[in-house]
């Protein structure tokens, strides 16, 4: 796999609902699109400060440690603004890698 010449395909969609902000991610996330993922999540968190943020991971096929770092930092940013941040519907390899680094429960509990 040549990451330098083939940046992973990834998309996002943000819905600001009355009671929460929902971000739907799709594609693959790694070092090559770390910056993009950071700004998508931070923008969404700041769009509804204090509102619970839910990240739908159903269509994410791959995430590496850089992507996980972004999720953890987004969680911290939401907490700083007085809101909550939780992942929903993570499955397959994505859930597996979150469990190996032992942050699955933390990131899905919404504390």
């Amino acid at each position, binding site marked *: 796999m040549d990451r330098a010449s083939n940046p992973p395909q990834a998309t996002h969609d943000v819905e600001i609902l009355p009671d929460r902000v929902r971000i739907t991610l799709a594609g693959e996330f790694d070092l090559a699109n770390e910056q993009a993922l950071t700004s998508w999540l931070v923008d969404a968190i700041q769009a509804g400060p204090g509102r619970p943020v839910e990240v739908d991971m159903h269509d994410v096929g791959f995430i590496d440690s850089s992507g996980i*770092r972004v999720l953890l930092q987004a969680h911290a940013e939401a907490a700083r603004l007085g809101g909550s941040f939780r992942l929903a519907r993570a499955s397959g390899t994505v859930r597996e890698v979150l469990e190996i680094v032992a942050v699955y429960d933390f990131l899905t509990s919404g504390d």
Partner: protein
Amino acid sequence: MTTPAETTILVVDDRAPKRYLLKNWLTRAGFAVAEAEDGHDALDKLRQRPFDMVVLDVKLPDMSGLDVCRHIKADPATTSTPVIHVSAHAVDAADRTLGLVGGADAYLVEPIDPHELVATVQAVLRYYQARRRAEQLAEGLSRLAQTTLAVTMARDFTELLGQAAAGAARLFGTAAAVATQTTDAGWALALATEAGKVTVGGWEPPGDDVPIGSHRITGLAAQWQLPADWPDPVTVTTARFRPDRPPLYLFTCAPHEEVHTQLLTQLTQALGAAAEAQRAQDQDHRIAVTLQRSLLPRHLPTVPGIDLAVRYEPASPQAEIGGDFYELSALGDQLLIAIGDVVGHSLHAATVMAEIRHALRAYAVEGHCPGRIVTLIDELMVRLLPGEMATLCLLLLDPRTGRARLANAGHLPPLLVADGRVSEIWHRAPLLGINHPRSDDLEFVIPEGGTLLLYTDGLIERRDITIRDGIADLSRLAGDVDADLGRYCDRLLRQLTNPPHADDVAVVAVRRL
């Protein structure tokens, strides 16, 4: 401008005396002349070979001269062949207009003045030659741009030189070769045949000093160690930007036209610049790798009753260096074993790796248990390295009893190979850098003859399989431990990874004798 002697004109007229007259005038003006009797004869002859111009009677027995002209202009092979109509009978402005609208470049009406004929032929040729030069230059510049893009996108010197030679062969329509010094001090030459087939090999530069700037000389192929079948003479164009930088050589067969010499210079400069950029990039990568390696242990400790092997495979030069690390130290009667991976790929990740490694050695020397060491590193990172994250698997082993205490922080499970069975040593606790609560240390025993295998994700991670399947693949291959532990690690790397590596791969094997 092309001399008239090289210019061949096809004269088309059904009347022999008229053809004779036209041929006579044009030959005396220095043109070569071929003849055709009617429209079909003319089109046949045009299919057989190119002509520089057609002098065409409007009234032919088999078809109209206007139709012959339309055929010439409609065929891509002859569309840029100029046509001059000659008309025997009195014609009015409307007829002449029809001829010119049909694609003719000039229209002469009898009685024809020989001087006017020759002057008209020369004027039309002048215009066509200028147009052809402009078209050639535009095409050459377009191919130059394509080649420049291809060499800029090349990932290594082999690809760069191959693209450069193939691009030069396309640009000039001849065999071409490009040579320069690659990063590892050797010189390489890429050869492209006229058909575009490329071979790359070693090359010895001549002793002469190449001047700064772009220069062009002519020589013999043998002087430049080009293949025996290279046609002499060879045109050698060089580009060198600074006295302390190696030059780049472009070899082509001698150009005939001014357009080519302009393109030669531009191409050589573009290739020279691309080679400089490639050297700089390779150099950066080499410095980063050297620095990263200097941050890892220099020697393995000698521990009675324990056999150790370590492998560290660097990522490909196209990938950034990673933050994989390992640690093996004898601390009193204990062996400290650790493997880890800092999130991110950069020299910065390598420096974070060094800080974590030094911290873990320091905390271990103080005599803390693995879980406490991990907690202390975690606190240190949150305070002093905010935003950084890493995985770490750390254990202290008593070589005499085989008793091991392990603390994991988000790292992949080590494998224990004992009595023909492979088990995954899972100890789930969060990765470093977020200061989350941890579970107690895991205690287990490595029996005599047992082997513990630690690794980073480069060994098992592939996007087409799950991590579970990656670990299962490793378990299958790891069960059979070679007598030589170094060979064991090499075999696992060979069977599980596919160089060039997108990521670093570290493997640590520890066996109790």
